[in-house]
C-alpha cells in the first residue's frame, strides 16, 4: 500500500505534466508561427502584443487594430492574443510569448477577470517585460508597486460620462421636466458609477429636472422594455426623457416608446456607443450615447511602455495620475454622430497623456 501511493503520485504528476505539455503546444499553436521554430531565440527587438477577450465584439476588434497600427508606425512586431473568455488561456498565452521573446515583450492586457491582472503583472515582471492593464484589476494592485515593469492601468470613469450624457438628455427636452432612469445590476461598479453621475446631473439642475422613477433593468433589453411600458402607464406625458445606464437597455426603452408612438418624441440616452445606438442618435430617437475609445486604449497601452523602453520618458518618475488613469469618453450626439461613424476619433501616438482625464478613484 505504502509503495503504491508514491507510484500513483508519480503517475499523476506524469499525467499532469503531459497534459500541461499538450496545453502548451496548443497555446503555442494559437500564438502563431512559434511551433516549428526553436523555442528559445534571444530577440533583439521588442515585440508588442494586445491581449483581449474576443475579436468578435466590436470594442475589442478596434482595440486590436489600435495596437496593430501603433506597431506598424514604429516598425515593430505585433501579435494579438485572444483569451476567448478563458483566464487560463489568457495567462498561458502571455507566458508563452514572454518565453519566446526572452522577456523583450510589451503587452497591453484587458484581463479576462480582475484577479488575472496580478498573475500577469508578476509573470511579466519576472521575465523583464512591460505591461499595461485595462478596465479590470484588483483595487490593491498598483503599477508603482511593480516599478518599472507595470507601466500603467487605464479605465473609463462612469461618473462624469454619465453626468455628461444626462445633461445631453436634459438639453434635448428643454431642461425642465420629469425623467425616468434604467440602471444596471445594482452591485456592478459601472452601474453604481453611472447612477452616481445621473444623480449629480439632476442635483445640478436645482429641481428643474425630476427623477420620476429609477428601476434596475439588469442590463437587460427585455426588462427595460417592460419597465418602460409600465412607466408610460404610470407617468404618461410627464416623462420628458429616458436615461439608460447602457445602450442595450436604452434600445429596449426605445422600442417600448415606439410601441406607444413616442419614439422620437421622448428622447433616450445610453452609454457604450454601440452601432444601433449611434444610428438611433442619427435618427433623432436617441439624444446621445457615450462611446469609449478602444483605438486609443489599444494603441496607447503600447505607446506609453514603448516610450519608457526607448528612454523618452522614465515611467518611475511619472506622477500617479499617469500610472492609473481614466480615458476620455466621447459624447455622441446628433451634431457629431455622422462624423463619429465615418471618421472615428484620431489618436496621436506621440501625445501620451492628451486624452487622460484624471487618476482612477476607488469609491467602494
Amino acid at each position, binding site marked *: 500500500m505504502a509503495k503504491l501511493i508514491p507510484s500513483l503520485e508519480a503517475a499523476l504528476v506524469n499525467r499532469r505534466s503531459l497534459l500541461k505539455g499538450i496545453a502548451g503546444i496548443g497555446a503555442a499553436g494559437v500564438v502563431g508561427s512559434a511551433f516549428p521554430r526553436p523555442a528559445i531565440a534571444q530577440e533583439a527587438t521588442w515585440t508588442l502584443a494586445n491581449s483581449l477577450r474576443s475579436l*468578435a*465584439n466590436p470594442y475589442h476588434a478596434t482595440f486590436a487594430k489600435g495596437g496593430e497600427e501603433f506597431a506598424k508606425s514604429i516598425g515593430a512586431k505585433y501579435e494579438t492574443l485572444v483569451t476567448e473568455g478563458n483566464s487560463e488561456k489568457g495567462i498561458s498565452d502571455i507566458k508563452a510569448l514572454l518565453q519566446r521573446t526572452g522577456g523583450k515583450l510589451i503587452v497591453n492586457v484587458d484581463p479576462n477577470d480582475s484577479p488575472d491582472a496580478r498573475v500577469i503583472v508578476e509573470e511579466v515582471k519576472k521575465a523583464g517585460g512591460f505591461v499595461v492593464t485595462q478596465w479590470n484589476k484588483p483595487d490593491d494592485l498598483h503599477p508603482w508597486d511593480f516599478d518599472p515593469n507595470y507601466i500603467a492601468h487605464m479605465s473609463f470613469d462612469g461618473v462624469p460620462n454619465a453626468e455628461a450624457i444626462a445633461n445631453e438628455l436634459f438639453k434635448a427636452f428643454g431642461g425642465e421636466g420629469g425623467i425616468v432612469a434604467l440602471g444596471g445590476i445594482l452591485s456592478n461598479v459601472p452601474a453604481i458609477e453611472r447612477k452616481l453621475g445621473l444623480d449629480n446631473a439632476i442635483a445640478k439642475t436645482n429641481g428643474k429636472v425630476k427623477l420620476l422613477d429609477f428601476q434596475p433593468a439588469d442590463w437587460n*433589453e*427585455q426588462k427595460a422594455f*417592460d419597465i418602460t411600458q409600465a412607466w408610460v*402607464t*404610470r407617468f404618461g406625458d410627464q416623462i420628458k426623457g429616458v436615461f439608460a445606464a447602457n445602450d442595450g437597455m436604452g434600445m429596449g426603452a426605445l*422600442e417600448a416608446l415606439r*410601441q406607444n408612438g413616442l419614439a422620437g418624441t421622448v428622447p433616450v440616452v445610453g452609454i457604450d456607443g454601440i452601432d*444601433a445606438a449611434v444610428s438611433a442618435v442619427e435618427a433623432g430617437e436617441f439624444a446621445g450615447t457615450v462611446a469609449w475609445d478602444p483605438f486609443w486604449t489599444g494603441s496607447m497601452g503600447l505607446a506609453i511602455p514603448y516610450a519608457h523602453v526607448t528612454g523618452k520618458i522614465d515611467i518611475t518618475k511619472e506622477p500617479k495620475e499617469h500610472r492609473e488613469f481614466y480615458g476620455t469618453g466621447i459624447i455622441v450626439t446628433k451634431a457629431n454622430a455622422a462624423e463619429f461613424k465615418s471618421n472615428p476619433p484620431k489618436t496621436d501616438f506621440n501625445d501620451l497623456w492628451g486624452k487622460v482625464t484624471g487618476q482612477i478613484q476607488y469609491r467602494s
Partner: protein
Amino acid sequence: MQAKAASTGWYMEQWRRWAPLAVLAALCVLVSLFNPNFLTVGNFVRLLNSAAIPVVLCMGATFIILMGSIDLSVEGVVAMTAVVASLLVANDITSYSIGLAAAPVAILIGGAMGFLNGFVHVRLKTPSFMTTLGIGFAGLGIATAVLGGLTVRIADPVFRSLSLGRFLGIPMAVWIALAAFLVALTIQQRTRIGRWIYAIGTDEVTARHAGIPVDRTRILAFVLAGLFYGLGGVLAAAQFGQGHALISQGRLFTTITAVVVGGTALSGGVGSVVNSVIGVFIVVVLANGMVLMGIEPYVQQGVQGLLIIAAVSLALDRSSLAVVK
C-alpha cells in the same frame, strides 16, 4: 358523511381550478387600488403586448411540463431563431431579404431544434433536463458564433410590423399570440397527441401498456415546443428590430414561472394551456404592477418570490401527491 367529504373535495377541486384566475383578479384589484391608471385601455393594451411573447413560449413549454419533463432550451432556441430571422430579412449584415418568408424558416428551425431535443431525450434516454440544457447552450453558442458578438439590425418594415403593426388598435404580436393559443388549445383538447401527453404525464407506464406510442408522442411534443419557441424568436426579433445572442436573456425563467404559477404541476399530468395563459398574466401584471405601485426596486424581487409561492400553493392539489420532490 361520505357524501359530505366528497362534496368538500369537489369544492376544493373547483377552488383549485379557479385559484390562478382568483389570484390574477386579486392582483388586478390590488394594483388598481394603488394606481387607477392600471385600469385604462392603454395599459391593458400594453399588458397584452408584454404578455404576447411569453404566451407563445408558454404554449410550447406547457406540453413538455404536462408530460412531467422539463424544457430548458427556451433561450437557446429563441436566440437562434431570432438571429436567423434577422439575418434573412433586409438587414445590415447579410444581403438576404426574403421578408415575411423568414418567419416560417425560423419557426421550422425551432421545430428542428425541438426534434433534436426529443430525439436525444427519447432515443439516448438522457433526462430532458440535461438534454434541453445542452441543446439550449448549443443554440446560444451558435447564435453567438454566427454573429461573432455583433448585433444584426433589421431594416424590413414589413417584418417589423409583425410586432409594431396594429389591427383594431391591438398590436399584431398579440393577435399572433392569440392564434398560437388557439392552436395549442386545439391540440390539447381535440387531438390524440393532446390526450396522450396527459396520459404520459399522469402515468407513463400505464400509458405504455395502454398502447400509446410514448416515444413518438414525446418527440412530437418537443417538436411542437420548438415550433412555438421559433415563433417566439421571430416575434422577439420583430419587437426589437434586431437579433443578437442575448435577445432571449431571462426568457426561460419567465416561461417556467408562468407555467407553474398558472397551476400546471411540474410533476406532470395536471394543468393546461389555459392555465399557462393565466400564469403569464399573473407574472406580467405583477411586473407592471410593481412599477405602477412604486415599490422599491430592492423589495420587488422579494415580493415577486412570495407571490409566486403563494400562487403555486393555492393552485396545486398537494393532497393527492404522495411525495413532493
